[in-house]
């Protein structure tokens, strides 16, 4: 009895209790606000990130042409010209540099002896008019030099030569979207300044992300650079990655879920996969560099798409395995038992019952793993994706560059015009990822419907 009395005395009552309760509620609401605020900060960060990219990818730019495109072709679009016409333009404007273009783009001999040896040697293996084979480059007339260029260079290369060498668009100063919207008077003042040095300077509103950017090859000139080579490189690498990681990953998942008995080996495999998922991606790069690029060079040909694809394949393998395991585990065991009951073997059961039922989940997991591989940059840098490549990859043994590598390279440059094209390339990458993820979501939705229906 006395104990309960003293207890009651310890607990506040009446006004004191009300005061304490108010204080407790106040403290709770302050912290509650902090919790919701922290989520808000995360969302604001995402918005800032997107706005920051959009801000750099669009905006005014002060540019100047060496030669107005409209002077070359009506309408100013050199994209529609064929090889002959492009060579004529080169000949008209940069006649003296034709041998240089031949040397830079076609020569297979050392630059120091290029002018002394006949074409049959310096251009061995290239296509050019046969009657010129015995002559050196300096003996050719300008027309013959032009004919050599027209015969062996692709339209793409010729077009980029015209763009860089003749039109020579120079970005003097790019502006961010925010500057373009709110600081127009400063931009105008700077345009006037620029006009003093460069009478051709002009102000234009520029979307750095445009059709040309998507279709042009890489270039050291930011105004002419595009992401086609990098985009194709990324698609090739991902293709190899999935070709390797999907069958192996799903296979391992089937083994672990359907066959493995809990012995020491299988437990080891299971924990090992979980730990591999936590290994930093750059370590996979070192593994790829030492094993795939160096030791297996006779198969992979060194720093190629194949090496990169397999490296990324090893990287996403644990993700695919874990996701596939979950999908397989979700298939009800009654399906398996029914299949055994009508006399199917284990593999017949897996192939005809379990896998079809688990496939949407497996595919969703694989697509998510793929989108992780698309954005991976560090392993590709370590195994040595080439930074400057302008030819499209055509086989798994080609040297390559990839979209994230290109973004990294452009971002690392101090000039702001490279920042602008980096932002445009980021948008391309994010749209690619969005496509992947949308596919995964649609698959998941369809799977849910088929379960319900």
């Amino acid at each position, binding site marked *: 009895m006395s104990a309960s009395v003293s207890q009651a005395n310890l607990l506040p009552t009446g006004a004191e209790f009300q005061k304490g309760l108010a204080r407790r509620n106040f403290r709770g609401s302050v912290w509650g606000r902090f919790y919701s605020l922290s989520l808000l900060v995360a969302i604001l960060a995402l918005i800032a990130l997107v706005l920051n990219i959009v801000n750099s990818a669009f905006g005014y730019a002060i540019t100047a042409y060496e030669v107005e495109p409209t002077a070359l072709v009506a309408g100013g679009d050199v994209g529609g010209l064929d090889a002959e016409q492009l060579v004529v333009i080169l000949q008209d404007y940069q006649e003296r540099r034709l041998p240089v273009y031949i040397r830079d783009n076609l020569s297979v001999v050392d630059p120091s002896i290029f002018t002394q040896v006949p074409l049959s040697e310096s251009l061995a293996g290239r296509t050019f008019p046969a009657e010129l084979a015995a002559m050196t480059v300096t003996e050719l007339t300008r027309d013959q030099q032009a004919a050599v260029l027209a015969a062996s260079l692709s339209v793409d290369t010729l077009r980029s030569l015209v763009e860089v060498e003749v039109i020579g668009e120079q970005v003097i100063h790019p502006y961010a979207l925010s500057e373009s919207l709110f600081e127009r008077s400063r931009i105008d003042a700077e345009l006037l300044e620029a006009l003093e040095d460069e009478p051709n300077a002009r102000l234009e509103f520029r979307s750095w992300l445009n059709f040309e950017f998507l279709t042009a090859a890489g270039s050291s000139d930011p105004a002419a650079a595009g992401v086609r080579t990098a985009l194709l490189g990324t698609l090739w690498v991902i293709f190899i990655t999935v070709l390797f990681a999907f069958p192996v990953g799903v296979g391992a998942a089937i083994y672990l879920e359907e066959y493995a008995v809990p012995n020491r080996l299988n437990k080891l495999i299971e924990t090992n996969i979980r730990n591999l998922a936590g290994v930093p991606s750059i370590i996979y790069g070192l593994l790829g560099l030492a094993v795939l690029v160096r030791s297996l060079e006779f198969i992979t040909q060194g720093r190629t798409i194949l090496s990169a694809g397999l490296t990324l394949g090893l990287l996403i393998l644990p993700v695919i395995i874990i996701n596939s395991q979950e999908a397989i585990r979700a298939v009800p065991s009654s399906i398996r038992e029914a299949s055994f009951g009508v006399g199917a073997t284990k593999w017949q059961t897996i192939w005809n019952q379990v896998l079809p039922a688990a496939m949407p989940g497996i595919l969703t997991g694989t697509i998510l793993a793929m989108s992780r591989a698309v954005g991976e940059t560090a392993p590709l*840098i370590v195994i040595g994706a080439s930074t400057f490549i302008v030819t499209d990859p055509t086989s798994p043994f080609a040297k390559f560059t990839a979209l994230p590598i290109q973004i*990294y390279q452009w*971002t690392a440059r101090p000039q702001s015009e490279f920042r602008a094209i980096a932002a445009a390339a980021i948008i391309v990458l994010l749209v690619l990822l969005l496509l992947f993820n949308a596919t995964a979501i649609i698959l998941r939705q369809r799977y849910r419907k088929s379960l319900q229906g």
Partner: protein
Amino acid sequence: MQTQLEAGREISRVQSAVAARRAQATLYKRPRPGEDAIRVYLLLCGILSIFTTLGIIFVLGEESLRFFTSGVTNAVEFLTSIKWQPQAGEFGILPLLESTLMTSFMAMLVAIPLGLGSAIYLAEYAPSRVRSTMKPILEVLAGIPTVVYGYFALTFMTPALRGIFGQDAVQIYNTAAAGIVMGIMILPTISSMAEDALSSVPRSLREASYGLGATRFETIVKVVLPAALSGILAAFIIGISRAVGETMIVALAAGAGSNWSFPPNFFVAAETMTGHIARISGGDLSYDSVDYNSLFAIGLMLFFITLGLNLLSQWVSKRFREVYQ
């Protein structure tokens, strides 16, 4: 007569056939070579992961061994020297390790309070409609490639810090901007793991706490958080492990060239372990040079740190797990 005889023969033939069959009918599984081959293939798929781990350990170990026996440096100097200047033959990992710890510390300073806060909000406060719209947004944040975060750190966070603390105080490349953005990158990981841990605490515990007169905040702090502690700690440790191994953000925003600063200065350029590997291997690197081997020694260090953290996280989540029925 004849027919009887034949019938008798027939019977005895059937009887002997049945007996013979009975002797044969030991109940063995029919051999199925196809099934066995498939089983072996699937086992090999599983074992490949073990080979991957062995490959990593072997490659890192072998090249590190070459590095330490090359005569240029040794393991003691590698672990204790505060100078990393490959041109001068100085290979002390401490400056690189220090920058890694600095960026990771900065990242956790951002990611732990914000990640845990948003997890508590999502698990305890948010109405289900808010939760179902917010979780995908966090997933988007988690799915953005790290190189994009690197761009964000360099072109947004650094100018912002320079605007706040002054152009002179903050260098163009610095560990603070890299660390903060890394924190934003890790936030969704911590948030989603912590939220899972909070959601798995049974309702009955909360209701008991309310029944005793506790407010919602008191219930969260004194009942739910302690109950979910193992999962939350595991999330923090995984977050640190990801911060240590993160490459692109630091490669773009933290700067090139190792820098030992004591006391640590977050506003100056300093190269982390991962940043150094990325920068050196991105250039023209000849095989079997000391530079090449040194990358693997750094990689080995990195591997041990992250593996240790991952194992610790698994141990914590197992050791301190509260099991409810």
